[in-house]
């Protein structure tokens, strides 16, 4: 058991899978020599050499196209899109090609690959380098969508993603890279489609993802101080979605809150709300509250950015308001 940063966990997860499976390689802008702009791939070039750890031109379509073609022909690529905002420059390859190939070819083609990307705000980078776009990916049939909140989950879910026969978009949160936690020694392999109750509680359910998980946990502690016992669920993977765990919790608490960083309209919370209303309607004691970034592009200045993304205080306040 060693303490590892979320950032280091990324490199460890990749290394674990590259060690295990010769077919796995890493490709992206400045991932090799420089070890990644977020230093998430440090050491991998030295360890695995330039055949398996590759720097590329600024050509996101070429990178993801190459990953797709390689995946179709027997390899297991891990491609990096530096900031998740940049998915937009290669969105066609992701949503029209990678996501649909298996279906359109009646199962002839497989696309087992992982696209890692730095997602989310908090670094004052402004509206083009801070977006949470996991909801864009969730809306596309054929993709899997993963977003870990802890270093151990990074390793285990990354391993599961690499071994998954389907294309996985793996969202790392920029503002979690520096966070640290204990990570078990040895190989770690987790499972996609399994949400985690990270804090059991009786009064209400808070469903969160990535950076919103530690915030929801902190909020839950504050609420506990006021006698409100919140259950906090870390969704971990949006697709596949562990609705059983979420609905189970709602059936118990009868009150549901989602905490999401993506802008409000059609954030992933909307899908959770819709499922809960459909399948746990008679258990609900009150409106479901979505705590979200308002429906705005993100401002860059520190104070503004902090006010825009859901904070611990806002979660506490909205939960209390929602309980009235």
């Amino acid at each position, binding site marked *: 058991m060693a303490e590892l940063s979320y950032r280091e966990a990324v490199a460890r997860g990749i290394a674990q899978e590259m060690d295990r499976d010769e077919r796995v*390689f890493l490709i992206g802008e400045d991932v090799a020599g420089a070890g990644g702009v977020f230093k998430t791939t440090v050491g991998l070039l030295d360890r695995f050499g330039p*055949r398996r750890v590759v720097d*590329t*031109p600024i*050509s*996101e*379509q*070429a*990178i*993801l*196209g*190459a*990953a*797709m*073609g*390689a*995946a*179709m*022909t*027997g*390899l297991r*690529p891990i491609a990096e899109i530096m900031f998740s905002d940049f998915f937009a420059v290669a969105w*066609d*390859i992701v949503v*029209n*090609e990678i996501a649909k*190939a*298996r*279906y*359109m*070819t*009646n*199962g*002839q*083609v*497989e696309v*087992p690959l992982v696209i890692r990307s730095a997602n989310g705000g908090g670094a004052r980078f402004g509206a083009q380098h801070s977006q949470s776009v996991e909801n864009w990916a969730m809306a596309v*049939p*054929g993709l*899997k969508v993963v977003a870990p909140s802890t270093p151990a989950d990074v390793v285990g879910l990354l391993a599961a993603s690499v071994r*998954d*026969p*389907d294309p996985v978009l793996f969202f790392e949160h920029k503002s979690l890279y520096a966070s640290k936690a204990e990570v078990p020694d040895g190989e770690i392999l987790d499972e996609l*489609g399994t949400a985690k109750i990270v804090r059991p509680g009786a009064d209400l359910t808070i469903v969160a993802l990535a950076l919103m998980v530690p915030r929801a946990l902190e909020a839950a502690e504050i609420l506990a101080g006021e006698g409100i016992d919140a259950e906090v669920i870390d969704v971990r993977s949006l*697709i*596949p*979605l*562990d*609705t*059983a765990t979420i609905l189970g919790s709602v059936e118990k608490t009868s009150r549901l809150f989602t905490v999401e960083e993506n802008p409000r309209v059609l954030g992933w919370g909307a899908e959770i709300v819709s*499922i809960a209303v459909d399948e746990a309607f008679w258990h609900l004691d009150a409106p479901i509250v979505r705590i979200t970034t308002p429906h705005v592009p993100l401002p860059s200045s520190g104070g503004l950015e902090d006010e825009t993304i859901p904070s611990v205080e806002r979660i506490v306040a909205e939960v209390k308001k929602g309980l009235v």
Partner: protein
Amino acid sequence: MNPLERLRARRAAEDAGEDPSMTTPEAAMGRMDKPYGAHDPTLPPPVDSTLDQAPIPLEHRLRMYELQQEIRQVETQLHRLFVMGLVQGTSHLYTGMEATAAAFGTLLRSDDYSFATYRGHGHTLARGASMKGLIGEMLGRESGLLGGKGGSMHLTSVEHGMLGSYAIIGAHLCIANGAAWSARYRGTDQVAVAFFGDGTTNIGAFHEALNFAAVYDLPVVFVCENNLYMEYTPIGQITAVEHPAADRAPAYGLESIVVDGNDADAVYLTARDALEKARSGGGPSLIETLTYRHGGHSRADPGTYRPSAEVEAWKDRDPIPLYHQRLLRIGVDESTLTGIQTSVAERVDEATEDAKAAAKPDPSVIFTDVYADGGYQWRN
């Protein structure tokens, strides 16, 4: 002046230090200075009869003849089936352009990879994919190559190295790079080939793919089939250079190659070199084949935006009679050729009957193969 001559003239003028854009009438052709459909016709190059003597094995030549027949007859049949109301969705026929697919199909090794566009019937057949599967797919049947789920624009037959037809312009050039990457990574000497049209050279993915292939010296061959039109627009009108692929090759450190795309032997020789180069670690090539489609862009298009002199000149320059004549000239019997034609016709008929008789897909397949577990479950 035909396009090849034009290219040569332009190069000569450039070498002589002239600015050809000021001196040749063709240079003006490119822009919007004529009423729609009234642009100058682009005429085909003359047949190069020296190719009769090209060092091409006879069996390869007969195979190219057979493939061109297969493709032509299938396309003709599909047009008939379309008129009868049996073809579903859109379709983009390859009629008139057969030489390129036939030459590559003859040369590619069974473990090489092909990537085509929505105009991919020919490239699919040329890899040996099933005619029944192809016609079945066009009729939306369970027997189709894609079980009726993909349609005309996505023909794929992985077992034949045909890794797909891609209906959104550009992406598959990038994807072909990946297959080439994989081949080299795995230490094989497989090659990937991507076929695409002239219009496709103006999309960003083309540029990214070409640079990427060149940077990593990938074993990939890019084949631009320049049929002079992007849908209904003459390519010169929306492209900064005359040869949309060849004139861009130097931007990727590659050689400019323009070849007569209506002469299977011409394509064959160029393709052979490019494949050999790729297979032996020499990196990518970009080939521009000059050709013409006999029909409209897609099934709904009568193609009236093309000057009739142009259409006629190119129909006269049909790759199949041309090749037929060559084979006769080099001593093949008419009866051998007729034999090939007839046997192809029989197979086309058989495949058609098979497809017509095939069942429509069961609605349950709507929910299969979204994910690797065979289903579509995105939740528990």
